[in-house]
């Protein structure tokens, strides 16, 4: 035991030195996730209206001031992290799952490929934020609808990535061998093709997560995202727009928080990419 400690310590230091971006990104995310989970214990009620305390600047009572309805900006910010993280994570999972299945099938079966890829090209040509706003307007605004509306335009990007990997391994000798052994297609794809897609997909998932958090905030900002009564960073900025001059904290607090979370996810993604694909890391 005692012998192990210095070696482990050295390994940790070595990892920190070699992958600083990943460590910084991951620690920032961990901190924000903890804050979001512990929200009820570290912040007061985010929707409590106290008209007496309208637009109060930051103070010992209200760390980040109050908004135009007298709500605690700090509390709303902490609760807002919940929605951002939930949307980012859900969109990443849904689009990776759907995109992978479609990409595997398109890459492996050339008949499916032609049709599916034209469909994907078409979806990619529609500006994602417009598609998302339109879907939210049609299906009604709720967190679930927002997640689906943001996930759909992300699917083609995953499909293209997975398809490219499948095309590059499809005719390699080990896959050929498995095929001639009579392995069924489902098993072949799962056991011999899918593993090659894991590393690029993990990296892609972080970028999708970052972009989903940004899009959700953008949708809420435009008034076409999560219902206004739910505290989200986009909603906070949207409802405080007109008070920019007299109460800048109502906009800057959620804005900076939003930027930090996206930065953390992007740093984590860059770090993972360096770790998983050393060939690109030197250049990017």
């Amino acid at each position, binding site marked *: 035991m005692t012998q192990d400690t210095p070696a482990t310590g050295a390994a940790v230091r070595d990892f920190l030195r070699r992958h600083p971006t990943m460590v910084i990104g991951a620690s920032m995310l961990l901190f924000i996730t903890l804050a979001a989970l512990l929200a009820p214990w570290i912040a007061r009620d985010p929707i409590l209206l106290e008209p007496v305390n309208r637009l109060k600047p930051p103070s010992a009572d209200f760390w980040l001031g109050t908004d135009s309805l007298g709500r605690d900006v700090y509390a709303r910010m902490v609760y807002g992290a919940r929605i951002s993280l939930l949307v980012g994570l859900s969109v990443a999972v849904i689009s990776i799952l759907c995109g992978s299945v479609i990409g595997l099938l398109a890459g492996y079966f050339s008949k499916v490929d032609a049709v599916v890829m*034209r*469909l994907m*090209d*078409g*979806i*990619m*040509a*529609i*500006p*994602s*934020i*417009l*598609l998302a*706003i*339109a*879907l939210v*307007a*049609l*299906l009604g605004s709720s967190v679930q609808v927002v997640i689906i509306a943001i996930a759909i335009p992300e699917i083609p990007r995953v499909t293209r990535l997975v398809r490219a990997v499948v095309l590059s391994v499809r005719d390699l000798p080990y896959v050929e061998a498995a095929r001639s052994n009579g392995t069924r297609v489902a098993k072949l794809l799962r056991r011999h093709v899918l593993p090659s897609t894991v590393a690029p997909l993990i990296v892609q998932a972080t970028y999708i997560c*970052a972009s989903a958090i*940004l*899009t959700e*905030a*953008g949708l809420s*900002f*435009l*008034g*076409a995202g999560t219902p206004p009564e739910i505290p989200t960073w986009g909603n906070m*900025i949207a409802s405080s*727009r007109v008070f*920019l*001059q007299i109460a*800048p904290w109502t*906009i*800057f607090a959620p*804005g*900076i928080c*939003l*930027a*930090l979370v*996206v*930065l953390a996810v*992007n*740093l984590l993604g*860059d770090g993972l990419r360096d770790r998983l694909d050393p060939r*690109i890391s*030197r*250049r*990017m």
Partner: protein
Amino acid sequence: MTGYIIRRMLGVIPVMMVVGIFVFSLLHLAPGDPAAIIAGDNATAESIAKIRSNLGLDRPLLEQFASWGLATLRGDLGVSIFTQIPVLTLVGQRVGATISLAATTMLVAVTIAVTLGVLAAWKAGSLLDRAVMGLAVTGFSVPVFVVGYILVYFVALQWRWLPVQGYVALSEGLWPWLRQLILPSIALGLAYVALIARITRASMLDVLAEDYIRTASAKGVATVPMLLRHALKNAAVPIVTVIGIGVALLISGVVITETVFNIPGVGRLVVDAISRRDYPVIQGVMIIFAGVYVLINLLVDISYSFFDPRIRYS
């Protein structure tokens, strides 16, 4: 070459057809009666019936799609339900502001990004390089409306250097027009700068490692011509590609930027149309934006052989 261009242009047809089907089905995918959705919550049975027959929603779906598709092909995007003005006229009134914003953003962003990317690659590993890469990650993480409000707060409200919001047409004079566009272009361009600078640096690093660059330096070619004429031109294909892909980013950003800076452009038009459920406007603008995206990426594909004559289209 001509054959390739023709084939690539024909390839636009299926993509735009998918876009058309998607945009058309938006209205019909929604649960419930489209006419009732358009009419809104407090509509009477008569007004719903009137909307249904006006828009031809009582005809078979395939027939509706065919007539809508044919009209769109002819350039007839229908009439706004809310204002009773043809969609094309509405877009025409607002397209100047949007093109001004997009063009200034693109010009400024590409110039800054390519310069930064070339410098970073030239001095790879230096403090400058790290600063540029840091800016790139940050620029990609800060949402356009946050940059926008920070700029408005300091530059316009506190220091009073530039106007807070609004748009002035170019016909009112060059400076009044430009003055309104400086802050929006910076806010919108930041993410674009980040994207392009990153790719420029990566592509330049690849090219700078090639033998012919070493030969050029050994022959005594000065640094600037070496970087620009020898290296940058050969590094251009990935850069031009990402500029094309970034157009999608730019279009999404335009919608938000126009809201932040109160610019009466096409983005504002479509956001207002969505809140009023003005379907002809929503469908028309989506088709136009998608068409612009497809067209720009077509031009990007065709430009490859100009930058790299080794690329032959067969």
